[in-house]
């Protein structure tokens, strides 16, 4: 079947994967349990910093049901620091100290939850019983907890071989900020802190490995976002050829970034399977996840904006510290995203940006949905709000005066982005997006609404903020498409799927090219035996990079179909159309041949095949973009604040976004809804709390507050489509955009709601928990009261 009046790309196609997911038939790693499987529990350090003096595992080893207990001393050649996954870009004057962790601690503990020993037992229950029998003699060291003091000379060092806790230092500039500042009518400086938290995927990490000694093959089921690179690292570490190792990332219950990382468990579990000759399984539990899986956290900024009287930006200066945690395996992706994304959709003629990355005794920081972009957007949008207030301008107006216009693309920001390429915007709809959000939220008439609410004793406010998101970076992805004799079209690609709707969106791209319905396209992702070239699912790049590889492969298959059909029907390929799973002659629909028949014809069992041709209706293609394509959008929300309880309720949430060509609006909206939910969590609920000893105080979902369905309002979405100029489909990424500007919008709206009650209140720290808002309100009240007293008192 074909879609009447258009293409499958752009249609609200129901998801191919939902039948399996909703009826419990989808295979997750937890579901994999070959006969004879042994189960792993790790003994992890409770202390964040210490020297491991002695580790006694003898009682654990002799516990009934325990098959093995491994410590660092048992690992042999595996005992070397983990992979440096993303080296820093080649920036002038860059300082970067690469430090990655050992699979198991040998001497030095650098964060809570570092693994000391691995226990393999008949069941996870027995393994945990044995874990309690391990005696670790640890000399506690003073932990580095406070990011603001991490780089002080007197602070203890996380890595004893480095002169300080400095992991990296980067400075990027454009224009002459000092001159801009001297020329400005208004210069504002503030200190900001922006914290983030865990990825919070519904499925924790899990690895199941089975060594098949007869086939000399290792099969690993893994919740990774990057099955191919992880397969390659594991094969190399274990001394196996890549083709001996099959990694399968089946359905994965959410990725959000942390699962792109390479983890020690991904080597240790397969290694244990080879050593013990049994399938071995490890499923991370929720408590472990707070330490053993990477997370994102805070940055401290000192930022300054210089503007003219009319509100035009002359320049921005931003100096910040980024918390890397105990190691830095993912390089500088997060702080460079912050540095670059801060510039947003605005003209910023001069920019001075400098950051330092600090090692701390906290779990490792790597990208989580948004990956540092939130921090940058928050700083810029707050600076604009403060400048608007200082100039007596409306927050929307100051944005209007600074956004890059539609005629200015491609726009070059002159500094270097995370993909090692200059920060360039290929296309965008910044003015249109802002105006559409302003219209949808009713910004012009909002003052009347605010008055009406005030009469009812309610404080309501509105926030409107912009963002851009660099998406779809390289290096490349690939796809192989095969028409099978049944007429089914098979697509294999290397990226893994964690709930993004790949089985549908990718199928839609194929369906348009070869004339079948998306439901007739069988999509395989994340199995290295089906496709073993590619990097993974990250940086909002699936629909861009894999999507365009699929598009290219589908067009090649289309060519083959048309050639074989033309021969079969003895017509010119030009006269053919592909409809309903068949090639047919235009204007003579009775003259047709099914794709299945053509697949058989293309793979004959006898007879001569022309030299230089390939069998089958199959093609493999790759796509690598020259640089990332930039998506954009505007979020607007209306909040009600109870100034007595400091509780904030979101009354309306509007997202206007532009991710170029929309493949499936339903899936895009799902991405936006999930992103906004994550952003609401970041803005108001989620915070990793570390005590003075460096321990995480809230390592459970009782105290680490993810927003629930009742905390996320209905989200009104408007799609703008400015195609990317960097790929044939015109797609841009949308996986992270929903999460990026939420805190900035939230802060503006809360200030707006409290403008009369607490004039001058400034939200400079995120998350804005009710406790923090209460303190802000109290401080404002006290300062007003003391001001009133001193003004009214006797002189």
């Amino acid at each position: 079947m074909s879609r009447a009046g258009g293409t499958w790309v752009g249609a609200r196609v129901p998801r191919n994967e939902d039948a399996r997911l909703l009826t419990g038939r989808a295979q997750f790693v937890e579901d994999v349990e070959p006969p004879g499987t042994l189960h792993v529990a790790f003994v992890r350090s409770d202390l964040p910093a210490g020297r491991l003096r002695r580790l006694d595992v003898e009682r654990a080893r002799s516990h009934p049901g325990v098959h093995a207990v491994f410590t660092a001393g048992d690992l042999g050649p595996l005992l070397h620091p983990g992979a440096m996954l993303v080296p820093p870009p080649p920036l002038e004057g860059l300082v970067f100290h690469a430090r990655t962790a050992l699979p198991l601690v040998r001497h030095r503990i650098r964060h809570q939850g570092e693994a000391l020993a691995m226990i393999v037992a008949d069941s996870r229950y027995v393994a945990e019983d044995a874990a309690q029998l391990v005696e670790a003699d640890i000399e506690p060291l003073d932990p580095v907890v406070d990011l603001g003091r991490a780089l002080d000379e007197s602070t203890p060092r996380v890595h004893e071989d480095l002169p300080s806790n400095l992991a990296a230092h980067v400075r990027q500039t454009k224009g002459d900020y000092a001159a801009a500042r001297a020329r400005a009518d208004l210069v504002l400086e503030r200190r900001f802190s922006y914290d983030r938290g865990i990825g919070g995927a519904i499925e924790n990490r899990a690895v199941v490995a089975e060594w098949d000694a007869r086939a000399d093959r290792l099969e690993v089921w893994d919740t990774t976002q990057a099955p191919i690179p992880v397969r390659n690292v594991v094969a190399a570490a274990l001394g196996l050829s890549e083709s001996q190792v099959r990694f399968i990332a089946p359905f994965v219950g959410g990725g959000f970034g942390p699962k792109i990382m390479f983890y020690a468990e991904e080597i240790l579990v397969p290694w244990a399977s080879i050593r013990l000759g049994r399938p071995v399984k490890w499923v991370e539990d929720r408590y472990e996840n707070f330490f053993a899986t990477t997370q994102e956290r805070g940055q401290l900024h000192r930022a300054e904006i210089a503007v003219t009287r009319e509100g035009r930006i002359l320049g921005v200066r931003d100096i910040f510290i980024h918390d890397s945690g105990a190691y830095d395996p993912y390089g500088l992706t997060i702080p460079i995203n912050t540095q670059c994304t801060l510039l947003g959709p605005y003209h910023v003629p001069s920019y001075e940006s400098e950051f330092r990355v600090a090692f701390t005794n906290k779990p490792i920081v790597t990208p989580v949905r948004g990956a540092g972009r939130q921090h940058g957007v928050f700083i810029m949008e707050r600076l604009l709000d403060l400048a608007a207030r200082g100039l007596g301008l409306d927050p929307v107006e100051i944005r209007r005066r600074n956004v890059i216009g539609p005629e200015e693309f491609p726009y070059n920001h002159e500094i270097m982005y995370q993909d090692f390429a200059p920060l360039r915007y290929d296309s965008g709809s910044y003015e249109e997006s802002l105006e559409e959000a302003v219209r949808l939220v009713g910004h012009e008439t909002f003052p009347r609404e605010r008055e009406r609410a005030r009469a009812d004793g309610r404080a309501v406010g509105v926030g409107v903020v912009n963002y851009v998101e660099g998406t779809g970076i390289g290096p490349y992805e690939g796809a192989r498409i095969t028409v099978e004799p049944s007429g089914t079209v098979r697509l294999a690609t290397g990226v893994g799927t964690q709930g993004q709707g790949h089985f549908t969106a990718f199928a839609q791209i194929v369906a348009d090219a070869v004339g079948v319905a998306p439901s007739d396209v069988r999509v395989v992702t994340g199995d290295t035996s089906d496709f073993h070239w590619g990097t993974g699912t990250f940086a909002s790049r699936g629909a861009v990079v894999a999507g365009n590889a699929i598009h290219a492969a589908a067009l090649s298959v289309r060519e083959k179909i048309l050639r074989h059909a033309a021969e079969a029907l003895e017509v010119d390929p030009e006269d053919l159309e592909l409809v309903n799973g068949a090639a047919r002659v235009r204007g003579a629909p009775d003259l047709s041949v099914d794709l299945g028949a053509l697949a058989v014809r293309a793979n004959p069992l006898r007879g001569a095949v022309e030299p230089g041709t390939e069998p089958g209706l199959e093609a493999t293609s790759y796509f690598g973009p020259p640089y990332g394509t930039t998506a954009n959008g505007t979020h607007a929300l209306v909040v009600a604040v109870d100034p007595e309880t400091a509780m904030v309720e979101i009354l309306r949430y509007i997202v206007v976004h532009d991710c170029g060509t929309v493949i499936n609006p339903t899936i895009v909206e799902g991405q936006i809804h999930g992103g906004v939910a994550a952003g609401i969590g970041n803005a108001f609920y989620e915070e990793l709390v570390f005590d003075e000893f460096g321990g995480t105080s809230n390592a459970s979902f009782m105290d680490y507050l993810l927003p629930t369905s009742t905390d996320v309002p209905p989200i009104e979405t408007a799609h703008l489509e400015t195609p990317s100029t960097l790929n044939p489909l015109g797609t841009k990424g949308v996986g992270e955009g929903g999460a990026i500007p939420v805190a900035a919008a939230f802060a503006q709206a809360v200030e707006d709601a409290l403008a009369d009650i607490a004039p001058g209140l400034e939200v400079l720290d995120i998350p804005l928990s009710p406790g923090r808002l209460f303190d802000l309100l109290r401080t404002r009240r006290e300062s007003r009261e003391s001001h009133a007293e001193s003004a009214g008192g006797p002189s």
Partner: protein
Amino acid sequence: MKPPPFDYVAAADLDEALEALADASVETRPLAGGQSLVPMLNFRLAAPERLVDLNGIDELSRIEETEDGGLHLGAMVRHRQLERDPLIVRRTPLLAEAAPFIAHPQIRSRGTVGGSVAHADPAAELPAVFLTLGARVRIARRSRDGESGSRAERTLALDDFFLGPFFSALEPDELLIAIEVPPSTPGEGTAFDEVARRRGDYALAGVAARMRLNSGGVCEEAAISLVNGGSTPCLMREAARTLVGAEPAPEAIGAAAAACAETSEPAADMHASEAYRRHLIRTLTARVVSRAAARART
């Protein structure tokens, strides 16, 4: 997050459960709804040698009207029943009003009134609500050596039951078997409210109030208790007393709310400072007492 090994006894009746609890040689904990105990087992914060499961004991699930027109709630009555049971909703609307604040429907379907009260968590809703209602607890154990009969029972005012954080007057061989709520009287109004980070979370602070007015609108009796207002579930007697003998005018309620905030002993934690909790207690007390007074008037 797997529990350590333990023995499990599914008690068929109350005597069997009391028998298991009476055996001092095996550390035994009763398993009611499991909504606090099971997570504690999984985190290995509790490691009893044996669990005695109360879920099969029918007599603990009864909801009955007592002779004086009050309510008898068996210990195994689920939170969800407080919201839905017609007798409870009619007789003690405060229970029905407060129950939806307890966690989420799935948890309320399992969690029990007896379990919640016996757990003596100052952050839980039901201890505060039952205190406000002047409830009593019925406690049973197997007869000890030298006592007559197979079973011994005692009844305790709830106010005497809570001794400290997560610490009650229950002896290791005792089981809380029922909660008895006195009948409501004419001219009585009740209300409950709390502020929580998210719907279903433990409250940052919560307030339950009951007020009885005479025909002239003068307050004859008032009770206020707090959720997360101190280290134990507690009645705010002084604050309530200030309301008695006068009409509950806004100024009087404001003064009672201030007294409540002042005499409360809220703890600081990662979710709220002591000052914020006190402020919430004051705000919520004013709102809740006003609502109880308005309901008493109608």
